């Protein structure tokens, strides 16, 4: 599974993930409060400009992420034009496009390892309650590893079904799928325990 982040070392890639998320949170809060078309259009253009600094592939990836949103926005605009005012429709469209675009920009320019490091840093205070800060990173790594395994298993189950029946399998194959997951969880849990388990062990204080 590939992250949506674009590979590369642009100026935005080099910024730290913490800074980007902090700025994004601030920008979102400001944009949510704007309700005039002109400042929102300026914000939208600024976001478009940000994507443009990544080159064509940045613009393409940004447009791709916008597609499922535009579907709903289009519906709303038609509705607004029929019942409300054109002004409202314009504000709504601009605000959503600017906000989604800004968020997508952070996703496009922050590689997965940077994000996981950020999550680990944010999770560090929870170590006091017995939660290992490595847990989120381990969870992400394991889910990413398991998705192709489970997809392969679903295909195997579907093939086994087709070899025996002319009917479509439908959702019934989810039953053996879930039962196999419950068995897997025992094996995986044993493997994790054999490698030291998940609860953080008390390490002696570092001297450095």
């Amino acid at each position, binding site marked *: 599974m590939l992250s949506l982040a674009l590979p590369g070392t642009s100026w935005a890639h080099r910024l730290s993930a913490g800074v980007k998320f902090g700025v994004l949170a601030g920008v979102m809060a400001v944009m949510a409060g704007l309700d005039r078309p002109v400042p929102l259009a300026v914000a939208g253009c600024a976001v478009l400009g940000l994507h443009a600094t990544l080159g064509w592939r940045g613009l393409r990836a940004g447009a791709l992420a916008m597609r499922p949103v535009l579907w709903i926005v289009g519906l709303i605009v038609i509705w607004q034009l029929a019942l409300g005012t054109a002004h409202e429709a314009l504000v709504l469209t601009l605000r*959503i496009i600017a906000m989604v675009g800004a968020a*997508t920009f952070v996703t496009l320019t*922050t590689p*997965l390892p940077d994000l*996981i490091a950020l999550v680990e840093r944010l999770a560090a205070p929870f170590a006091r309650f017995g939660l290992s800060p490595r847990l989120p990173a381990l*969870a992400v790594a394991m889910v990413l590893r398991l998705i192709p395994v489970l997809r392969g298993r679903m295909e195997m189950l579907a093939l086994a079904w087709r070899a025996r029946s002319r009917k479509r399998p439908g959702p019934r194959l989810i039953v053996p799928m879930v039962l196999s997951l419950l068995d897997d*969880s025992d094996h*995986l849990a044993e493997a994790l325990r054999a490698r030291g388990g998940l609860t953080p062990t008390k390490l002696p204080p570092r001297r450095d």
Partner: protein
Amino acid sequence: MERNFTLIILFAALICALGFVPPITLISGVPISAQSLGVMLAGAVLGAGRGALAVVVVVGLVALGLPVLAGGRGGLGVFAGPTVGFLLGWIAAAFVTGWVVSRLQTRFIWLSATIAAVIGGIVVLYLCGTIGMMIVLHKTFGQALLLSLPFIPGDLIKAVVVGWLTAMIGRYRPGALLSRAH
């Protein structure tokens, strides 16, 4: 601890893998994806807490920019879009589904699980989704709800399928329904 962790991880991966199942299109032309079925099932099989945590992992992956939602969607943009309420509502949906399955004792497991999936996967989910649209689109509750109504028939079908799947899992492996284990 380790077993709970692996159960949560495996169901999170299942929800993601179900996003690759091609959606079935209803007569009304509305596509229904298997992904929210996985959310209801996580609650019904794992129980409230673990089911909700499995969904938390999926939502976390979306925030990290991984294309794990149906149709290869993902990234922070989803959290700024109109459907954010439905994504975050999945967590509540799995929790409530699991909670109802463990509390509601009827003569048939399928009936309990279907009712649970309707309450969690439709009532609670649409409540969260509608509130999300109210905020993002600045609509009244009724207007926002109207936008999501076409999806309710598909979700009703999913709730029935979840009830049936839960009963089958319980029949073949009675110990597997962790939501019912006390």
